[in-house]
């Protein structure tokens, strides 16, 4: 039984993988674009809000032990509501990961495979993801917990190896474009913590459900530290870049690492680690989508769904006409969707379900 359950470390790794996959692409640039030199301050502020929301999610799930958000939505609005919510989650995970896959593949194509059609680069990831999903239900979850420390080490290394290139004065003015941009409209940067969408599905998957609170808090804190390191690296290194560079921002930072004449051009090592992280990310999103689909359709086996979901992701990754279109989705559409769906709609469902449960229990007592 425990073979199909997740340990706390694996659960935290899942959430971090989603954050890391977004960070490798344009997430740091989006954050820096919206709050400029105040991004570090804004991230600390946003972390406070997300910590509160994570705690709120934990409190809401406390009344529904061993249930995920789909079970709770069924309790709240019946089967139709559960199906709608499940559909929304499948849409969110599949579309966001497909678009991210497209952008990542396109960046790799620009850097390493200029003459190869982007379709084949995407196919490369899709094949890896499909194989991982066919292996066993939790293969990708386990693999993630091995890869995650490596991904965190690379970012730590990126930060410390680039310290010589830092200009700390770039964090001033500390309030960036002003108080309103940093603390009011800057709340939009909450979408950087999109990884917490996994928290809604974790309770029934955990080996030790009593650790759910720790997982919620630890995943938000580690994600915040990770984001702070990435944003600090870029903020201290480039001031102009934000509006100019179209390649992955962290990749640009890796190109600056040099130790004498012999240790140079380490970017390929970083890209290799990020590619593996990306396969893990695709594995996780497709797995959670399959879980949702399995739950709303009450299908017994998941393996027949692996190939259709992989093909769906492949087709969606190819659907943007060009890089500009997929970047628009990642930078704009995805940001607002996360804001509305993950942080407002889902938490709203949990709160209303809690009120309903409270009312039912009150009625039972009286």
């Amino acid at each position: 039984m425990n073979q199909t359950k997740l340990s706390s470390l694996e659960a935290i790794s899942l959430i971090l993988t989603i954050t890391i996959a977004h960070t490798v692409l344009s997430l740091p640039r989006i954050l820096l674009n919206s709050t400029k030199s105040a991004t570090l301050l804004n991230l600390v502020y946003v972390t406070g809000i997300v910590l509160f929301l994570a705690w709120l999610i934990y409190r809401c799930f406390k009344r529904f032990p061993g249930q995920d958000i789909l079970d709770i939505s069924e309790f709240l609005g019946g089967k139709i509501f559960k199906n709608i919510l499940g559909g929304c989650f499948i849409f969110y995970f599949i579309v966001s990961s497909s678009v991210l896959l497209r952008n990542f593949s396109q960046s790799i194509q620009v850097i390493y495979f200029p003459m190869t059609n982007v379709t084949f680069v995407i196919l490369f990831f899709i094949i890896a993801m499909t194989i991982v999903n066919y292996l066993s239900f939790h293969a990708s979850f386990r693999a993630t917990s091995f890869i995650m420390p490596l991904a965190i080490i690379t970012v730590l290394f990126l930060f410390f190896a680039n310290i010589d290139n830092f200009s700390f004065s770039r964090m001033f003015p500390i309030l960036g474009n002003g108080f309103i941009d940093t603390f009011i409209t800057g709340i939009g940067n909450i979408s950087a913590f999109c990884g917490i969408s996994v928290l809604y599905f974790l309770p029934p998957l955990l080996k030790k459900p009593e650790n759910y609170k720790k997982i919620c808090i630890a995943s938000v804190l580690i994600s915040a530290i990770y984001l702070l390191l990435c944003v600090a690296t870029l903020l201290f290194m480039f001031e102009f870049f934000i509006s100019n560079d179209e390649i992955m921002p962290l990749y640009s930072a890796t190109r600056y690492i040099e130790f004498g004449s012999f240790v140079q051009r380490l970017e390929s090592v970083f890209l290799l680690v990020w590619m593996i992280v990306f396969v893990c990310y695709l594995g996780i999103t497709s797995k959670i989508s399959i879980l949702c689909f399995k739950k709303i359709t009450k299908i017994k086996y998941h393996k027949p769904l692996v190939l259709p979901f992989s093909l769906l992701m492949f087709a969606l990754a190819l659907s943007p006409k060009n890089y500009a279109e997929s970047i628009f989705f990642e930078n704009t559409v995805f940001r607002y969707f996360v804001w509305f769906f993950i942080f407002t709609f889902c938490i709203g469902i949990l709160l209303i379900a809690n009120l309903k449960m409270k009312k039912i229990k009150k009625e039972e007592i009286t």
Partner: protein
Amino acid sequence: MNVPQSLKKIITHIFILFMIILLIVSFSSSYASLNIDNLAFVVALGIDTGESHKLKVTFQFTNLPSTLEGNASKESQTVFNTVEAPSINTAIQLINAYLGKKINLSHCKLIVFSEEIASQGISEHVYTLMNDSQVRPSSNIIVSKCEAKTYIEESFPSLEELSSQYYEIFAQSDQYTGLVVNSTIRRFF
């Protein structure tokens, strides 16, 4: 019961073989295009004001000697090419259009701006170079009193056989003299 299992195995093997062939074929074109034989490596870039266009861009290539047949000790030949274009990227495209090999800037060690163009502001050009995935952040930037084209063409290192090596180390004297400014792309802003 055994027959479908073995058939399944055969189909899996055929599928794996097909995917391997597909991926090898699809990625081989990129491998060929990035092959060292098909690339022309730029070691220095000179940027001047153009007559018919905004910029006059000079490329210095190194024609590396073959290490076969005891030619290893031969000096490398330098080749210069100049084009006029509205921007650096267009200049690269233009030179790619008529040069036999595809130019590659990943070993470009020096970028020279003439004083005339520097007085107009070079941040736009430096941004272009910084955002290029081939140009290294360690490339040196120089502003020359004379034309950038003349500077590149007249720079013959006497203690080095490879001009790329000279371009890489000559600015490092700032570490022990303080008379030279080591201005690389990474330190420019």
